[in-house]
């Protein structure tokens, strides 16, 4: 069957297995010379693509929950949306969540996802107590930061290349209400935005929407959005049931837009509207629009048309002077190719061996896949590497070996663990082949 991930590029022909028991998984692994696990396919590129794919979506049982401490054990195919559905009404929230709830727990581990709280809470792996993983020889290993810690830290952020993640145990966090106390701060340019991030580090959640088409003195014009889980006392005067979420209905995008719909004029118009939408103020908002603003437009990836799109997400270490960041922003702004909804975020420390975050600032921008954008990426790669940064594997569809190996300083350590647990190199993806993970 034809398979593609969120960016709709590339589209490949693959054999997809959807096992519903561990025994079935073992049979498939034994019979496949090469395989990669896949959850909701929300990575943008080819991380979960190969000629043989093992879908975890039917391995989706919640196995245990302890309502005294929020510890939950579930199979890897359980989606974040299901966890929210079941546990938010009971006062528990995800410890870390990316900008979509349509991902699986297995995918969250394999990408070691981060959220708006990375600077205080770390990435998803920081909240994991243990994971259960099926290796290439069919054996099942439970690993944690204490036991088989090498395998654990290689698997968190390891893009599914160490084995099939079967189960994960992690801690949810208690909440009193479904509301977020939100503060919006408009900043005129990138200097102001960075200062605002630093000055507001104590907020649990922070993220900035940045207008990548703004130039000159307005370069990096942003809206910094800060958030804290609202307490019951803060909202009880206006909401009778503070744990009942009442999000707006989602809007479908029923077909692919023609590829020319997004051009520099429509994007500029969109950015102006988006910029006007955010005004500096405090308010209480439902958690859904706060964390998942784009989930309300189901299949929004179709807006980019059939030729597909990608997200260029990089991180630069904190040691890089602001000028470095500006240089990259200026290159994007001048290309005029920039995207709508670019996201800027302050990161804390790194977790897993191949985990993306490192202490510093990350910027994520969407681009249609065109020859021009591909050339732009090459230029951006050179700058990102020069400044000691790297690209997010879960968003990537085109980086080369050099960009990977220079960006990920623990790549060799990862490969040595992989060679130990997967000597026959069974777990591979189109991405792992492209960036040469096995050949380091």
């Amino acid at each position, binding site marked *: *069957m034809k398979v593609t991930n969120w960016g709709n590029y590339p589209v490949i022909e693959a054999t997809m297995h959807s096992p519903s028991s561990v025994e079935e998984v073992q049979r498939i692994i034994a019979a496949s010379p090469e395989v990669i696990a896949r959850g909701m396919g929300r990575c943008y590129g080819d991380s979960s693509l190969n000629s043989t794919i093992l879908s975890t979506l039917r391995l989706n*049982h919640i196995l245990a929950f302890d309502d005294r401490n929020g510890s939950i054990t579930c199979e890897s195919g359980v989606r974040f949306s299901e966890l929210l559905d079941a546990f938010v009404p009971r006062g528990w929230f995800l410890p870390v969540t990316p900008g979509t709830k349509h991902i699986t727990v297995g995918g969250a581990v394999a990408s070691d996802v981060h959220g708006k709280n990375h600077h205080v809470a770390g990435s998803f792996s920081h909240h994991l107590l243990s994971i259960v993983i099926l290796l290439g020889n069919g054996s099942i290993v439970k690993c944690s930061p204490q036991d088989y810690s090498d395998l654990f830290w290689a698997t968190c952020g390891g893009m599914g290349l160490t084995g099939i993640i079967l189960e994960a145990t992690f801690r949810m966090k208690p909440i009193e209400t479904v509301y977020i106390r939100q503060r919006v701060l408009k900043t005129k340019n990138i200097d102001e935005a960075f200062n605002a991030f630093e000055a507001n580090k104590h907020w649990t959640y922070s993220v900035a929407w940045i207008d990548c088409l703004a130039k000159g003195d307005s370069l990096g014009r942003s809206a910094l959005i800060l958030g804290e889980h609202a307490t019951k006392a803060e909202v009880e005067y206006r909401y009778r049931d503070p744990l009942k979420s009442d999000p707006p209905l989602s809007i479908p995008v029923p077909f692919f837009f023609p590829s020319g719909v997004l051009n520099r004029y429509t994007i500029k118009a969109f950015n102006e509207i988006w910029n006007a939408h955010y005004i500096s103020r405090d308010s209480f908002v439902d958690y859904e629009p706060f964390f998942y603003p784009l989930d309300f437009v189901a299949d929004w990836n179709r807006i980019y048309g059939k030729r597909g799109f990608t997200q260029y997400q990089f991180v630069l270490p904190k040691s890089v002077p602001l000028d470095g960041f500006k240089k990259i922003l200026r290159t994007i702004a001048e290309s005029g190719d920039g995207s709508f909804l670019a996201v800027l975020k302050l990161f804390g420390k790194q977790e897993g061996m191949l985990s993306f975050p490192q202490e510093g600032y990350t910027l994520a921008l969407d681009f249609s896949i065109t020859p021009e954008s591909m050339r732009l990426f090459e230029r951006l790669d050179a700058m990102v590497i020069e400044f000691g940064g790297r690209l997010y594997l879960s968003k990537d569809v085109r980086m080369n070996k050099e960009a990977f190996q220079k960006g990920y300083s623990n790549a060799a350590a990862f490969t040595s663990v992989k060679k130990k647990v997967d000597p026959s190199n069974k777990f591979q993806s189109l991405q792992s082949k492209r960036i040469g993970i096995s050949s380091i």
Partner: protein
Amino acid sequence: MNYVLLIGAGSDIARPLAFLYAKAGYGIYLASRNYDRLVRDASDITIRYGVDAKAFVFDVTETSKHKQFYESLPNRPHGVVCLAGILGDQKKAEREFSEVENVIAANYSGLVSIIHIIAADLEQRQEGFIVGVSSVAGEKGRKSNYIYASAKAGFTTFLSGLRNRLFTSHVQVLTVHPGFIRTKMIDGRETPGIITSSPEEVARDIFTGQQSGKDFIYSKWFWRFIMLAFKMIPEPVIKKMDMK
């Protein structure tokens, strides 16, 4: 606590449907042949939504055990959803009558047996609901699956008669005609993506239709128009179209 009994709980629609009922506060009884799997499903439902959920072994075709099964349930359910069914092997059925009997037992006569037992109870209690998941396939025969389709046609007609019988007893009977669904039943078969729905979508339609007191629904809704158009093609034309 009101209970909902799901017959054919090994179906891909059963779990998302059970979640919806559990979230609305119903206790859940899961019944199918695959007991081990159901035990895990039941535990999952309780963990997620804090309601009582139990698993039971049940075979639609073993009609002699149906009465005993129903009476052994810890609580009389408020409603039942029948999701059981098999596609069968059409080619085999054309050669061997035993395959025809299997398909009829799993999709029609076995369901009639268990539903009649439950219907009698609900009729007496003057409350509750019965949901039967039939198929758009039952609306017109095609050469690739007419044994299955004719059993479903029988089931649809059974449900409409039952609805009329139970109307005065305040028991709702809902017939569901799903179109293509991405389930194990059609694994490996190519279906047109745009009109193929997910088990979750169908579960949502069933739950909403039942809760709002409907008699008959298509899932997804546009199948009403697809079938309307399909049924308007005259037989002399259909047979020449050589449809699969």
